[in-house]
């Protein structure tokens, strides 16, 4: 036991002293995400703040409704009006004019004679930035609300007995959703949006965890070879399986820590996005109230499935990594595993596997990583039978891989020199 803890401690110490690992995994996750979310909220807030929009107006009409429009614009908070008899003075003005509205002659006449009137709106761009774009968009939205105001006004003038809303918006749609026979007064689209978010976030974070774990495990054997420490390690009074177990546990711990850091950063980012979009975390409690979140048992089963997937992929990576002669080749081996992790998960996100032809279905089900998404889905549906089946399959798969890897570790020659490497050596000798 003490030899094992000594080995695990060594693995952890080495990884946490590797600046590449620390910067790449922990600092990036914990700094980049909060930074991204800060930038995001800042840009949103600054658009809100950057607020005083200056609108230039060239009024060729000088009638009742052109005055009405100008009065309306003046009443909008944070809007400043600059009037001028021609466009060129406005475009060359020292004021930061975002848009110019040209009110043509006959504007008021058209409105009063029940014809359509028109306006010309020019956006003034001094430099390209997102804020600039949003301020010109807000000019349009101000004009759209004036349109609505104008319609109400005209209806009141022409049909004093009619409620303008009954004409402008005669149909009020109240959405509701039946879930498992129970009625909820929520539009289904909101629900699906939320569901999709959880569908994506859970498998995505697990995929990330697996990728790190595989990388660490695959390179840990190769780096022992590259630094020429493996031979010494293999002649110490410890069993091969202890060395293997030490690497397995070390990689798993580091993968968990790394992904915890990643998840913390990621969740912070997501949370601030949601908050900015004013949906709030209430949506989460709403989902759980609706019974659309995994039950405790599902969560436990899902957790067990995550651990099994992690163990199977680490032992797979250790097994494959043992053949690599250098860290670089181990990295390319782990790179080869990446598509097997990403593709089935992405596939299952868009396609219902049960509808696929049998051979393809079997292939996908045989890949352990497919079950990241199938298990997430099963957990959301609280389909215990499915979850248990997945867990059984993954346990069997992991046991087989562990057995093969442990066997491989007892065959020293396989670890000491890969076949390819030895062939190269022999060729040189010849």
């Amino acid at each position, binding site marked *: 036991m003490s030899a094992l803890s000594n080995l695990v401690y060594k693995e952890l110490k080495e990884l946490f002293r590797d600046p590449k690992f620390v910067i790449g995994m922990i600092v990036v996750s914990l700094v980049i995400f909060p930074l991204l979310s800060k930038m995001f909220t800042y840009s949103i807030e600054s658009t809100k703040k950057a607020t005083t929009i200056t609108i230039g107006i060239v009024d060729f009409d000088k009638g009742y409704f052109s005055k009405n429009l100008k009065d309306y614009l003046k009443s909008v908070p944070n809007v400043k009006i600059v009037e001028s008899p021609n466009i060129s003075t406005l475009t060359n003005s020292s004021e930061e004019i975002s848009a110019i509205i040209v009110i043509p002659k006959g504007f008021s006449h058209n409105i009063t004679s029940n014809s359509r009137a028109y306006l010309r709106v020019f956006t003034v761009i001094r430099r390209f930035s997102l804020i600039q774009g949003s301020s010109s968009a807000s000019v349009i939205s101000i004009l759209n609300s004036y349109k609505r105001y104008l319609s109400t006004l005209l209806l009141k003038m022409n049909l004093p007995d009619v409620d303008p809303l009954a004409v402008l918006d005669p149909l009020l749609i109240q959405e509701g959703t039946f879930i498992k026979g129970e009625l909820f007064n929520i539009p289904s689209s909101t629900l699906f949006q939320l569901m999709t978010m959880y569908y994506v976030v859970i498998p995505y974070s697990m995929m990330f965890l697996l990728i790190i774990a595989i990388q660490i495990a695959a390179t840990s054997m190769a780096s022992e070879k590259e*630094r020429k420490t493996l031979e010494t390690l293999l002649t110490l009074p410890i069993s091969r399986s202890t060395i293997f177990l030490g690497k397995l546990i070390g990689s798993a711990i580091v993968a968990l820590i790394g992904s915890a850091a990643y998840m913390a950063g990621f969740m912070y980012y997501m949370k601030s996005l949601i908050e900015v979009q004013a949906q709030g975390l209430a949506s989460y409690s709403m989902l759980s109230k609706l019974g659309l979140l995994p039950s405790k048992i599902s969560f436990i089963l899902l957790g067990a499935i995550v651990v099994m997937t992690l163990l199977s992929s680490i032992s797979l990576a250790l097994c494959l990594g043992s053949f690599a002669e250098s860290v670089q080749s181990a990295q390319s081996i782990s790179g080869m595993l990446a598509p097997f992790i990403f593709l089935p998960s992405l596939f299952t996100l868009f396609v219902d596997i049960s509808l696929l032809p049998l051979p393809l279905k079997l292939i996908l089900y045989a890949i352990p990583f497919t079950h990241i998404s199938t298990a997430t889905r099963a957990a959301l549906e609280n389909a215990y039978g499915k979850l248990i089946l997945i867990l059984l399959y993954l346990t069997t798969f992991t046991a087989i891989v562990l057995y093969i890897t442990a066997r491989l570790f007892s065959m020293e020659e396989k670890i000491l020199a890969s076949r390819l490497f030895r062939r190269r050596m*022999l060729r040189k000798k010849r």
Partner: protein
Amino acid sequence: MPQEYAVLVDNLVKIYEGGIEALKGISFKVLPGEVFGIIGPNGAGKTTLMRIMATLLKPTSGTVRILGYDVVKEPEQVRKVISYLPEEAGAYPSFTGFEYLEFMAKFYTDDKEEIKVMIEDAKRICGLGDRLRDRIKSYSKGMLRRLLVARALMIRPRVALLDEPTSGLDVLHAMYIRNIIREYAKKFGITVLLSSHNMLEVEYLCDRVAILNKGQLIAEGRPEELKEIYSASNLEEVFARAVTYERFK
């Protein structure tokens, strides 16, 4: 039961995949407490022999017994009594010298006092002093080698297998390490098997030597004996003559 021989190598053959014969049936015995040298040019099979004794490689045929334990059938027992220094060895660059020694010592004992004694020993053997507090990545090639020799000897193994122990060391440090090996072997009754292509080093250090050439043992005996048999003034000449005679056999 006291063992008659510390190391027994009997008709050892190693053929690598692809048909390269690294060892062609060699036999020798090493007595307990003896410093035994295996000499030969590059590619003679020294490292293959060392690796088989260290349980890293399996022989194609023949037997090797270390303190009575068979390296193929009882590798775990063998690993408990040996300490192996590979020819090209490294250490964990992010560790300090002390951390590395402590990591290695913990595989041999749980007793904190014993670990302390081992590290003190290692400190004396390597002569690195306060540099042991520095990360290994800052060590020169020679410093690393001294640390690794110290690692191999600090546990006071019953059999030390040292593959080119002084490789990469300058003359003074090589001499220092040679003296330490001799001193430890005598003081703690360690049986030492070392390989080298430096014949003068072996002549100075070893009680007995075996000359390996192209996977065959062409001569074995005490340095003085061999010099007498081949009427040579040093082991280099012994080696050259032994190889020449072998060619005409």
